[in-house]
């Protein structure tokens, strides 16, 4: 009998737990530890954030699903990993602090034979003074944040309808943020809502991003083959901004936010201040606060985790310049070095470096999008780690790990640019692979499978994925046939 513990119940953690429960017999246990009792389809939060969807359409309670699937659920925050166990038991253990209201603050220690760390990000609003719902901007990172964003956005529309001009800033709130795609989606959904409300001409809409150029999306941009010519995601994205009349500021690091003013530095080292009436700025991500201890209680956090709090896996973390980055630097199995029973997937694993070229301003400020590792790649990594564990339980601990490097994995990214079954629009992109491999492809990616299209069909795809992935996450009949 083996006990498998999964930390986190987001896209990665939940996917891993479902596959583990499907593949492992009842003699084994699967336990999910998550501080939240609800699952959230985060890609649709942008629609909640403009009032096009209700919170209940993007979340559902995890408890009933886990009861049905025979998965134990601990509503708790994991605070420490003990890979060597403790004085009482040499098996690995995780220290948790319960977060469900009935037992809030109670601590416990859960033993494991295998562990998947899929804790997702810590939303580091504190990295920028005044950033976030406790400061002077809104966010769509969680469903509750998005509900608040929608409420404030409604007020903006009401003011516009009264004839008051408004400046709306959407983007990222720090030079090292990731998820620029979500900010891109939000700005065009805001634009669409303003048009539908008949007040677009009174609003100034500005996209503020750390990307050195539009269309980078944290993946270094893309090169597309189009009508016999190569074009870039930069040209394609700039076209959309021009068409919609959305202004853009690129290569920006937000330094601090005051009421209705955002202060930022750009790659040329200049400092700027911009007045706003409404701002949705995403925070940078960090690893959650997890410590690690050996059997004697000595702190070994730095052995398991990188300084940014993400867990080290089978990547090459040697510091080297951009020109020396290679596809082989990226992890394949997501196994924590030295521990063949511990894995980190999704945002929880420490990437070896960025994907986009990192840049610094003349003042030394790092302005470099962090690599995205959410959505499709996150689910694939989770399934890969889960199946490695299943193999090792069923065939023996020496069974080689399965692999799914982001340099050999494709991804579809569908960025909504407005809703409506007849009038919606989205930028629908596919890329193969996610992390470019210049040793295989001159442009870093296979141009046959790296494409970008804009149109109503993109909205249909985004809506289809919304319903498909919620169906899958609910573990309804045939859920496992829907690919990650």
């Amino acid at each position, binding site marked *: 009998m083996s006990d498998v513990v999964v930390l986190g119940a987001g896209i990665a953690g939940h996917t891993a737990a479902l596959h583990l429960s499907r593949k492992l017999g009842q003699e084994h246990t699967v336990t999910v530890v998550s501080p939240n009792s609800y699952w959230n389809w985060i890609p649709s939060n942008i629609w909640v954030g403009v009032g096009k969807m209700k919170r209940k359409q993007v979340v559902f309670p995890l408890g009933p699903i886990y009861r049905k699937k025979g998965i134990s659920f601990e509503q708790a925050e994991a605070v420490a990993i003990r890979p060597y166990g403790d004085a009482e038991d040499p098996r690995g253990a995780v220290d948790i602090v319960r977060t469900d209201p009935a037992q809030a603050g109670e601590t416990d220690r859960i033993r494991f034979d295998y562990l998947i760390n899929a804790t997702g990000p810590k939303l580091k609003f504190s990295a920028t003074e005044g950033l976030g719902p406790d400061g002077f901007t809104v966010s769509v990172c969680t469903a509750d944040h998005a509900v608040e964003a929608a409420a404030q956005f409604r007020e903006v529309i009401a003011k516009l309808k009264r004839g008051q001009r408004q400046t709306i800033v959407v983007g990222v709130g720090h030079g090292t943020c990731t998820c620029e795609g979500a900010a891109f989606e939000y700005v065009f959904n805001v634009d669409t809502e303003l048009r539908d409300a008949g007040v677009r001409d009174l609003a100034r809409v*500005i996209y503020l991003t750390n990307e050195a*150029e*539009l269309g980078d999306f944290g993946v270094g941009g893309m090169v597309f083959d189009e009508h016999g010519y190569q074009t870039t995601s930069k*040209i394609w994205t*700039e*076209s959309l*901004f*021009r*068409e919609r009349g959305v*202004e*853009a*500021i*690129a290569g920006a690091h937000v330094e601090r936010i005051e009421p209705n*003013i955002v202060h930022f530095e*750009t790659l*040329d080292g*200049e400092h*700027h*201040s*911009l*007045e706003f009436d409404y701002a949705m700025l995403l925070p940078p991500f960090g690893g959650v606060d997890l410590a690690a201890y050996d059997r004697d209680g000595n702190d070994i956090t730095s052995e398991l985790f990188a300084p940014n709090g993400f867990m080290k896996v089978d990547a090459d973390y040697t510091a080297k310049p951009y020109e020396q980055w290679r596809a082989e630097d990226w992890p394949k199995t997501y196994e924590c070095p030295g521990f063949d029973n511990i894995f980190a997937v999704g945002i929880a694993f420490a990437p070896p470096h960025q994907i986009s070229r990192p840049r610094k301003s003349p003042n030394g400020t790092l302005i470099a999008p962090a690599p995205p590792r959410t959505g499709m790649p996150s689910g*694939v990594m989770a399934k*890969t780690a889960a199946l490695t564990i299943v193999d090792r339980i069923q065939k023996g601990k020496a069974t080689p790990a399965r*692999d*799914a*490097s982001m340099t*050999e*994995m*494709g*991804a*579809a990214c569908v960025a909504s640019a407005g809703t409506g079954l*007849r*009038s919606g*629009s989205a930028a*629908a992109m*596919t890329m*193969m*692979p996610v992390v470019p491999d210049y040793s295989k492809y001159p442009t870093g990616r296979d141009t046959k*499978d790296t*494409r970008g*299209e*804009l*149109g*109503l*069909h*993109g909205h*249909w*795809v985004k809506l289809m994925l919304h319903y498909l992935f919620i169906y899958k996450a609910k573990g309804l009949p045939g859920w496992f046939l829907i*690919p*990650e």
Partner: protein
Amino acid sequence: MDDKTTLPTVDLTNAPLPTEKTLRHRKSLIGQAGSFVIFNLRMLRLITKGKH
């Protein structure tokens, strides 16, 4: 405080604008139904071709 003239906005004046034909295609139900099918097939190819 920056104003419109000092704010370092990206110069989009040379960005290509879609033609009328492209705009019509983006909204055409028949054309978009075809694009929808093709995009889904492309996603399936990504899944079968890559590590998934």
